């Protein structure tokens, strides 16, 4: 709530933010790394929404994906392995005015960070979470991750991994209080941008699994899908993504899917032979924990002291008169 003068003056003082305002250091990812595409898409979303750089907060764990905050123009928190989400939740509770983005990887999110991921989804705090899924631990040079396909040869699985891959989408669709799930491919920048944009606009915990190329350790992983667009299934809807005529000429497999339909979402993710790309589930009515628990007043040291003293006074032993 503000005065009319404040809003008018604030708008008159604003200036357009070009893409350069969202550019940080020069990325040190490998040439051809899909993280570059994600970086470009996020920067374009920030520009599209004209987000003040001082209100941006990128939180990451450990991994190639987690170098992301260094390359964005805004604030960043490069945290511990698997702990991006609780840090992001704390930031959001304390600073609800910030736009919080989380960059995590398949190992960071689905292995060491899995417990945080389950409950962060439940809490449904308003943030945009991008899981850069390259199916490998890349930063530490080639170890199998939970999403590595069965048979993946790596330093830790020299004879090929023996377990079937973990499916993040099927798992997420089973979490309670879920509000937004999507899957994107880094090599389709038009859809990548749309999906990240929709995820940002959604009020709640927006989880995007981004299929990401790793030219160094998983050079051929997504090659069949890139060369043969028919292997993908683009999910379109007026509440989802729309495919431009140019893109539709390349990606001909499109299916109308209402993101509000959870049953259909589970069907697509569980049984489709093609890889779905688009918004898989969306529910705007799920309440956000940060809204439910927002304090109704600013806490000052004096207030905290008063509260503590009131509580401790309850245990005061007084002499009988």
């Amino acid at each position, binding site marked *: *709530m*503000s*005065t*009319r*003068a*404040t809003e008018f*003056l*604030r708008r*008159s*003082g604003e200036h357009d933010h*070009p*893409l350069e305002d969202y550019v940080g250091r020069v*990325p040190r990812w490998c*040439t*051809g*790394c*899909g993280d*570059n*595409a994600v*970086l*470009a898409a996020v*920067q*374009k979303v920030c520009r599209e929404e004209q987000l003040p750089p*001082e209100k941006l907060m990128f939180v990451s764990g450990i991994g190639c994906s987690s170098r992301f905050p260094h390359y964005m123009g805004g604030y960043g928190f490069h945290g511990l392995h698997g702990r991006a989400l609780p840090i992001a939740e704390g930031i959001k509770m304390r600073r609800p005015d910030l736009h919080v983005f989380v960059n995590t990887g398949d190992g960071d999110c689905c292995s060491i960070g899995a417990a945080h991921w389950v409950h962060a989804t439940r809490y449904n705090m308003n943030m945009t979470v991008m899981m850069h899924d390259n199916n490998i631990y890349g930063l530490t040079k080639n170890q199998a991750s939970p999403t590595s396909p069965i048979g993946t040869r790596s330093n830790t699985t020299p004879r090929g991994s023996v377990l079937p891959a973990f499916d993040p989408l099927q798992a997420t669709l089973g979490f309670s209080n879920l509000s937004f799930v999507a899957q994107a491919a*880094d*090599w*389709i*920048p*038009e859809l990548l941008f749309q999906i990240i944009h929709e995820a940002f606009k959604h009020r709640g915990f927006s989880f995007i699994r981004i299929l990401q*190329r790793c*030219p160094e350790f998983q050079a051929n992983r997504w090659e069949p899908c*890139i*060369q043969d667009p028919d292997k993908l299934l683009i999910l379109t809807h007026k509440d989802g993504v729309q495919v*431009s*005529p*140019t*893109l*539709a*000429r*390349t990606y001909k497999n499109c299916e109308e899917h209402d993101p509000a339909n959870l049953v259909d979402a589970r069907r697509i993710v569980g049984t489709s032979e093609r890889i779905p790309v688009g918004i898989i589930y969306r529910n705007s009515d799920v309440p956000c924990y940060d809204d439910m628990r927002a304090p*109704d*007043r*600013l806490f*000052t040291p004096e207030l905290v002291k008063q509260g503590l003293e009131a509580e401790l006074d309850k245990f005061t032993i007084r002499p009988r008169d």
Partner: protein
Amino acid sequence: MSAALQELINFHLTGKRDNAQTESMAGADTVPALLAPYRDLLSLRYDYPLILVEGAETQAFVDTLTGVINRLLRDIAPEGNAGEQLRQHILRLESRMRELAVGNVNVTLTELWKQAEKSLLAECKNAEAEWLGNSIATARFALQIDGQVVDCDEQLPARLIQHGWNKLAIRRHETSRRINDLIIRLRNILKVDDLKNGASRTPQKLKTTLGKRYKEAFDFDRMAELLEDSTPHNRLPAARLERIRAALTVLESQKFFATEAVDPLQQKLHDFRFDNLSAALKAYHERLTEIADVVRAIAIADLELDNAYCEEEHSDFFDRFSPQALTSEDLALFPSYLICLHESECNTHDLARLMEIVTCDLPIKVLIHVSDPLGEPSPIDGRPHTGSFVQQLVKTFVAGEAYVLQSPASHLYRQKEHIQKALEFAGPAIFSVFVPFADGHQQLPAYLVAAAAMESRVFPAFSYNPAAGTGLAARFDISGNPDVTADWPRRELRFEDEQLQAVVEDVAFTPADFAATDLSKSSHFALAAKDSWEEGLIPVADYVDREDSNAVEAVPSIAVVSRENILQRLVVDEGMIRSVRRYRERWHALQELGGVHNSYADAARRLAEAEAQAQAQAQAAKLEPLPKADVEVSQPVVEEVVAEQQAEEADAETAGSAEEAYIETPRCTTCDECTNRNDRLFAYDDNKQAYIKDLDAGSYRDLVEAAEVCQVSIIHPGLPRNADEAGLEELIERAKPFQ
């Protein structure tokens, strides 16, 4: 014509009675027949008494005792026989509470409950007392609300509206909280800046800050030296510091809101409750400068806290900011004013002030307590006729954007949502409420008299909500009145004749019936002897509907019932009949505003129908049958063809000619492969997607190798431009898959 009837006609025409045929109504202890069954209100469950609900947990500001008890019973009493005893006990308690509430002006629901419980238990013995006590205790445990109990009396309108105004002043809490936050945050800025001041880092100051417990553990001199080196010295500029201090001073010293950040003993807040319009308007105008100062301070604080204050752009604006710059959104942040008046305190000057409030959109809520809607005008002292208030209220619809609510007290609870909306409305609101004074003139409880005023159209209920949409259809509402489409509500009157046979009459309730509840109006009535009833008495409603109003074969009468439940008839004089006609015309005007029998709408509808018909006929005459198409093309097919065409055009733009190198820029994934290879040949556009910047900056080999490493195969090398480049044959072969 008999002498008896002639006498009645003489009374009707002259208002003077002459002999026993026209006995006065005064002292007869009669009530209008339709109201007789409700004489004993205590035996009925109805909307009163009301509970003025306390506590911030609930949104509702008012409830009824009946509603509270019904909800209690629904929650705690099992269905069927198992819960019947509990239900009966609690209903007994409710009845006793209703009795005790009469005339009991300052009691809460809890206190009333206890009084009623004690009174009932005193009447019971042994086992019955135990059962009753258990039932009451069970219900008491489930009772979730409390508040002052008010009955339908002359204090009701002011108490109800003021309670609602206090409770629903939500905007006050929001602005108060906002100012509190701004004060804390501005103080924090000054605190941080102060810490950079050398004075805050002296050894003595550090010792004080750390507290007594650790004073022996530290070398504060050394600490001060260390901090001197490490503390940043970038203090706020003097101008900014001054600006923040000035804004903070204004916010701390404002008198509109209580804030936690300021010592309550230091705060002396403005009062917003007044007893007359002049004082309220004077206070409002006097405080406008203060309001402007607070709004300015809030705006400056907001900008400073966001680090968005720009001196070059903003200082001039704030220097010129004055009350003229205040908008309705700014004023909506501040509390509204409440004025409670009685109609006898209003003169024509007050009406003018009321119009000022309405036309200038001031945040002032005015309650006008009407106690005599049939009162006569007093041209000597300028007291307006109560009816003229209605006219003025109607005029405000046109003159301004005020929320207007008129209601008798009997209907007030049913209007609680309108009351709430009116109190929350940012602009002016006018409440006109009728409750009779207990001055001995009324023969019925105030609630029934108020209900009679609404039934008879003397004081109909209506509301005008300017925020409800555009046009009267959305804003104006008379639906709360009975039989909205009729001149008068009609009810069945059942009685026994002299032969003890049941008779049913369809009777209208008119202003004459309402006037019969007031002994001060008794001069307009005369009791008609029984033997004159058949000869020429007709109901008032039928009398005013006669086409020939000058015919004198019959006289108007109303049916009343005595204390002994004997039906009687009162003849009504011409003066009262004129009033009846006047109220009917006013009701018609309200109906028209409310969309009932709206003459404009009816005329427009007829005209539109006629025009539509004429147009249709003309069109039908002109039309010729179209030739049948050979192929039917559906809309989706058309759209697909258009989309395909657009895509081809887009491709053609991107592609250029087949010989020229190009990149499908929209599909670029920003992977740096090509730009790392040759950043003068390939570059990123504003969307960080690659395009060919300068074909002369690289070779055909660069193009082909870039095409080969491009992961999404969007680089198309075209044909070589330099025929002298080495290895062209091999390169052209390698380029073929990408053409």
